[in-house]
């Protein structure tokens, strides 16, 4: 009944099983796909190039945590009908809310910058200057947000999800050594140094980005799902998580089987695309760039919009693209500011994009445990969740994740000092 992309829901033929699944199918899969944005692709590519198949194992705990976290979001959304921002504000007060959303705002400005940098990088592979591609992309984003309807948006989402398959192709073209992949998954070579730990946190952090929790919950509410159909919602969450991890897997594999053996070090996703050309052919390189482009545009559409929406939701300002700028001034100012800052940053010659990406990941890394703790407390609150509070497994995974993340970050911090 609410949301930033409001539209009618079709519940016709709700009885047919397949139709029911299709009707509720979406939030998990879409969130899972948005997850693999420019930042994600960069992290996975760098991990593959630097450590070969050695970091593939991180995808297994990532999958478990991703599933547990998103299931919590889905359940909270279905049971309360409220967004995560609403729930945090209503239960933890202004101070914690303010800190979380200040962090989220900075992280998402950084994330959006990374998305536009991704667009610039991908188009460079096709020989287009960033001074042309980035303004053009910003315009496209603006048009899609202002002019699109919910139906159209959903279709674009699906096209986007499918386009992520280009990474699977890209990886297969690189003819990976499956035996070795299997071996590294079962017996990974663990290392204990600054770079390795940083990479592990990076992978977990990008797979389970804090803003996604807010997005997932809103998407579930947007669909108007009910607890009676929770089985289907659960299925959708699982499919979405598998999609995320599968795409991440193939990106790592693509880079690990081409760049790693030749010792090619990369800093950005576009470096990976370019480095692929002499090793796996022009087609593979362009496929990789195409995937990066679509993922970046897609996230550049959703991220600023979602961020502006959650901030306004938490502080009680009117929000949503069905409102006019006069009705919702804070929402439109925030939204425009995020895009403008991001676009300008990318266009500055010699902008420190890699430093920005790094800092964004650091903020995300600090934010994730905080958001997780809030979520675990909410989802265990009987007054909010009634009989649908969390059970042992879900809580255990949640707390372990928080402890491990905080622990790893702490070790990283100490190592950085030494």
């Amino acid at each position, binding site marked *: 009944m609410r949301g930033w992309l409001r539209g009618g829901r079709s519940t016709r033929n709700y009885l047919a099983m397949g139709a029911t699944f299709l009707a509720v199918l979406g939030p998990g899969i879409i969130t899972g796909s948005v997850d693999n944005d420019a930042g994600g692709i960069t992290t996975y590519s760098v991990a593959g190039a630097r450590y070969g198949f050695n970091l593939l194992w991180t995808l297994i705990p990532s999958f478990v945590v991703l599933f547990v976290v998103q299931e919590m979001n889905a359940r909270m959304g279905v049971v309360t009908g*409220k967004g995560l921002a609403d729930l945090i504000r209503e239960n933890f007060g202004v101070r914690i809310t303010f800190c979380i959303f200040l962090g989220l705002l900075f992280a998402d400005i950084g994330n959006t910058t990374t998305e536009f940098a991704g667009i610039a990088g991908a188009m460079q592979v096709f020989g287009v200057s960033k001074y042309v591609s980035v303004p053009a992309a910003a315009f496209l984003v603006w048009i899609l947000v202002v002019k699109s309807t919910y139906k159209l948006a959903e279709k674009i989402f699906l096209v986007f999800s499918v386009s992520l398959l280009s990474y699977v192709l890209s990886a297969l073209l690189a003819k990976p050594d499956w035996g070795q992949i299997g071996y590294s998954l079962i017996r990974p070579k663990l290392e204990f140094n600054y770079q390795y730990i940083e990479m592990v946190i990076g992978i977990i952090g990008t797979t389970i980005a804090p803003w996604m929790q807010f997005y997932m919950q809103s998407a579930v509410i947007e669909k108007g799902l009910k607890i009676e159909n929770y089985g289907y919602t659960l299925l959708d969450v699982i499919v979405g998580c598998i999609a995320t991890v599968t795409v991440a897997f193939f990106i790592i594999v693509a880079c690990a089987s081409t760049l790693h053996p030749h010792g090619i070090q990369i800093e950005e996703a576009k470096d990976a695309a370019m480095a692929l050309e002499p090793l796996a052919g022009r087609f593979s390189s362009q496929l990789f760039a195409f995937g990066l482009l679509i993922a970046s545009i897609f996230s550049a559409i959703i991220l600023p919009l979602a961020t502006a929406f959650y901030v306004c939701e938490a502080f*009680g300002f009117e929000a949503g693209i069905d409102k006019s700028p006069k009705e919702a001034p804070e929402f439109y100012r925030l939204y425009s500011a995020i895009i403008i800052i991001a676009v300008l940053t990318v266009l500055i010659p010699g902008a420190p994009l890699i430093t920005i990406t790094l800092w964004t990941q650091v903020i995300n890394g600090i934010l994730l445990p905080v958001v997780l703790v809030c979520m675990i407390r909410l989802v265990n609150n009987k007054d909010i969740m009634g009989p649908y509070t969390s059970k042992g497994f879900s809580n255990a995974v949640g707390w372990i994740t928080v402890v491990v993340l905080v622990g790893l970050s702490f070790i990283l911090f100490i190592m950085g000092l030494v």
Partner: protein
Amino acid sequence: MRSYSVSPVFPSIYFSYIYNTRVRLQDGRLMGRLADLLASNSESGKVLAAVIKTKEGRLATLDWSGFAIDEHEHKYSLVCRERKDFTADDSVISFRRQILDQQIVDINDKKLVRVNDIRLVFLSSGLFPVAVDVGWSGILRRLGVVEITNDFLQIFNRSVPSRLIAWNNIGFLSQDSRNIKLSVSYSKLHTLHPSDLSDIIEELDRKTGSAVFASLDDEKAADVLEEMEDGAKVSLVEDLPVEKAADVLEKMPTDEVADILDDLEKERAEELLKEMDQATSCEVRELMEYPEDTVGSLMTTDFVAFTADTTVDAVFEQLRKTKPESDTIYSIYVTDQTGRLQGSVSLPTLAVSAPQTTLAELMDAEPKFVYDTDKLNVLLKLLSKYSMLVVPVVSSADILIGTIVIDDVIYRLFRKQGVQL
């Protein structure tokens, strides 16, 4: 140090000043912290009790009359002079659980807002809330930086914008399911216009929206439902108990009911049809059977018809008695004993005619009409050619079975083109 209990000078404070502050006993020993205030659910909102989270971590609900507030250089604390237990009943409202940080409706602006702070005033008869703060000033005060920000803005000759909503202009929303059953009355919300109310309900989360909707009387609920978007209509009807939903739907035009039931799960629609009165459910069932592109799918079976020998006076008397929806009396129809359409009289014609004139003298004896099985374009041609507001619909035997109002046609056309209303 100043101390307020029953103060003579009407000082006012914000709830954020005292929320979570220390509560001491008269001898200075720490008792705990203020966790909540409970106020009367009546118009005045008089503060009745304080909920203290004691040192031991328990919650104690105590009568407010035993407390005083101390102020020392803008630092506030509470003193418990007398410990009187308070038993909360249904007539109290919780500041922490139902107002602070929660959404409320600004009745004047007809908007949903979030409460950042509550302004309280001391009167001789006790402590009363006067307004809620929904602006930036409230957020900054909670963060403890409102003074600094104000000092800074002073350089530019400005101050932090504050937005207060008077206590009696607030519609409370938040229900609370804790051990003390605090129930909010939605009576303030009921004063809003149906279209404003429908906007607010659409904006709310499904649970709260459904609760507000369920609190409306059948007539008002029907009006609100008509103003909703299709998706929201279906969700609300799904959430309502079957008997209530049936009562509300009976108050709506049959074509709208048919549209809503079409979008519901089949079982649920069937349950509702069974619950509705026989006549209405039969009409709705018939409407649901018409294919999408026929006139029948658009028509409503609500219309007003008389025999030709009825006088104008008698017509008005009947209208006064039955009070039909306004859009069903743009035109009055004349039928014979078997219900066959004979003519139509417009409301303006009726209004300017002498009381004793019969409809036979006034009616247009060759009324324009469509058949229920006609395709929509037949109707569109008729509407545009004769610029009619309402078109009567007859069955193949020329029996008057319904009407089509131009609003519904426009709505259908918009929907076909995917225009969001």
